[in-house]
């Protein structure tokens, strides 16, 4: 079946549209704020002109292609375009400042390829076996997952545990503004209709990272992000040797997390970062420029993206907004992904899957030479790069909802982010909390309704109890380390 799929995926028209999708996806990924969801939605009317295979191949390519490009600005100018590349920025930007931007981008592209391929292989051979994972997750499991995610705050905060927790609480609070996700009751809106839509976390991320970076750069006598160090272009064998294990580990983690609908690449990439820190031979380098950290994050978010195709193809369940639009694309053709599609239209399905192998190769070929182009960006003097960052950040923020409010949020969080860095508050926990807030609260409320108010439900179901125990273990261990080394919890913060 796969061979037939390849035969048809290699037809000129399918190849062409896969290529267009890969290019568009890379572009969408590189431009901050512009996500694959909007890009795919804009292409929906095209479905009236194209046969199903090329149209869906192109839309899918935009989706996984965007994951390749997403890390570029995070590494080069410390602007994660989406939440899933926030952990990339932590170490990637440090590496760039050490003059290793080129190799980091190269590793990131190679990792994306490895993880993307792991994901597609998983999709090809294990989809029917693994599809049940998607259904095993009910509200209590989602709550336990979100709780486990929150427990990562401890390791993301480094030695500034109290400040990390407070930053996370602040992030949770911003996520509560607007209408309650389930009951639709207005919260913390102060009667402002504009606030009813809530605050998106993308402008928050852009402010915390991009704008505060600009403010940090102008205050010291004006310089380029990279002064005059020699720049390497491609990763060395040494880099590959150091990162291959991280690529595989996070690729598998990402793929499995991708099977769970609603578990976004943002959650997975934080988890992979944390996991790699525990596996790594040099955890102390995390946060200061560890290549394997970048590999872990990129591997995880790419594999999560491919993993999301499993519940989509086997049940028609979209894992996130971008896949929901892709599902919309299927429906425009009157196709309903699910077991029936597998038996009725196997040719189409296998063509799409085969095109993903091809698309990943295309993306690698496309992205490796681009590394040279992007890495040069770091050589642009800051007085020129700075305003460009601001302009593209503003476009990205505005394009989310076409509201000026989002631009002001970017600015506000730019100042907040600046002050947080000066006062030693870690930024990453705040982003993580803002990303997890909805899942946490929604799942908690649903679980309590189902259990009629008993919190025991989280400890009586096998998957959720494992997650809860792991999370509680992480928390207990973090608190214990904190108490045991009291001197550490005072000043000196890790600059995450």
């Amino acid at each position, binding site marked *: 079946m796969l061979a037939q799929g390849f035969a048809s995926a290699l037809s000129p028209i399918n190849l062409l549209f896969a290529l267009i999708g890969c290019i568009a996806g890379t572009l969408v990924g590189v431009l901050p704020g512009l996500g694959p969801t909007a890009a795919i939605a804009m292409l929906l009317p095209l479905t009236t002109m194209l046969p199903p295979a090329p149209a869906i191949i192109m839309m899918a390519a935009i989706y996984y292609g965007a994951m390749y490009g997403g890390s570029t600005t995070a590494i080069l100018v410390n602007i994660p375009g989406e939440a899933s590349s926030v952990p990339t920025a932590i170490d990637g930007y440090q590496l760039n400042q050490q003059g290793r931007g080129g190799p980091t981008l190269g590793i990131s592209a190679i990792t994306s390829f490895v993880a993307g391929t792991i994901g597609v292989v998983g999709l090809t051979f294990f989809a029917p076996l693994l599809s049940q994972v998607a259904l095993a997750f009910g509200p209590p499991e989602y709550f336990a997952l979100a709780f486990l995610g929150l427990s990562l705050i401890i390791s993301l905060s480094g030695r500034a545990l109290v400040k990390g927790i407070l930053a996370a609480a602040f992030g949770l609070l911003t996520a509560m503004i607007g209408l309650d996700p389930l009951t639709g009751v207005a919260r913390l809106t102060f009667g402002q209709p504009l606030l009813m839509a809530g605050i998106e976390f993308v402008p928050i991320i852009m402010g915390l990272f991009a704008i505060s970076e600009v403010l940090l750069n102008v205050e010291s006598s004006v310089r380029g992000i990279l002064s005059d160090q020699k720049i390497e272009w491609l990763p060395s064998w040494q880099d590959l040797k150091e990162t291959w294990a991280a690529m595989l580990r996070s690729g598998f983690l990402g793929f499995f997390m991708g099977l769970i609908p609603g578990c976004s690449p943002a959650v997975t990439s934080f988890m992979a970062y944390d996991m790699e820190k525990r596996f790594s031979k040099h955890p102390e380098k995390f946060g200061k420029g560890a290549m394997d950290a970048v590999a872990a994050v990129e591997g995880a978010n790419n594999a999560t993206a491919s993993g999301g195709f499993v519940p989509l193809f086997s049940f028609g369940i979209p894992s996130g907004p971008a896949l929901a639009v892709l599902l919309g694309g299927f429906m425009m053709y009157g196709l309903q992904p699910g077991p029936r599609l597998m038996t009725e239209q196997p040719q189409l399905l296998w063509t799409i899957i085969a095109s993903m192998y091809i698309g990943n190769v295309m993306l690698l070929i496309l992205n490796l030479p681009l590394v040279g182009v992007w890495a040069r960006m770091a050589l642009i003097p800051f007085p020129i790069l700075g305003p460009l960052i*601001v302009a593209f950040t503003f476009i990205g923020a505005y394009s989310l909802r076409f509201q000026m409010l989002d631009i002001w949020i970017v600015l506000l969080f730019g100042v907040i982010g600046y002050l947080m860095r000066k006062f030693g508050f870690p930024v990453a926990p705040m982003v993580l909390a803002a990303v997890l807030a909805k899942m946490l*609260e929604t799942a908690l409320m649903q679980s309590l309704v189902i259990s009629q108010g008993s919190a025991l439900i989280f400890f009586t179901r096998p998957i959720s109890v494992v997650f809860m125990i792991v999370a509680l273990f992480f928390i207990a261990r973090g608190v214990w380390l904190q108490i045991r080394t009291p001197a550490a919890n*005072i*000043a000196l913060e890790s600059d995450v």
Partner: protein
Amino acid sequence: MLKTLRAGDGASGVFLIVVGAIALAASTTIAAGAGGRLHPRTLPIAIGALLVLGGAWLIVRARSKQYQDQAIDWPDRAGWRNWYAALALMALYAALMQALGFITTTFIFIAAFIWYFGKFKPWVALAWGFGTVAFIYLLFIRLLQMELPAGWLAF
């Protein structure tokens, strides 16, 4: 002012207490949702309380004797001037965007920023401004048909 982390922790503590208190006050009036076990105000109240307590803890800790103080790496006088200039430029950019249109304000902002911060000739600044605006126009407005604020000079 706020030269050291000790002072910084105190200030952030006060700020977090204020934010937490506002959140607490605003949360008490949240209406009950229809048929739910978790009141929509439970979590906001919990977080507000956490912020108040955490802020207080920061202040207490900053006053303790064991606190190893450390200077905050603030910019110098010229640095502050640049900092305020950059923030003012960005705020003006955002404030004028709707009236003048995205293209016009972006051009002015980029040219002004480069001219002010860079040691370039004015034409370099104008050229970058023009180039960026042309790129944005072609990619976002023409190709992606994005609805950016048009302003008076509607394209």
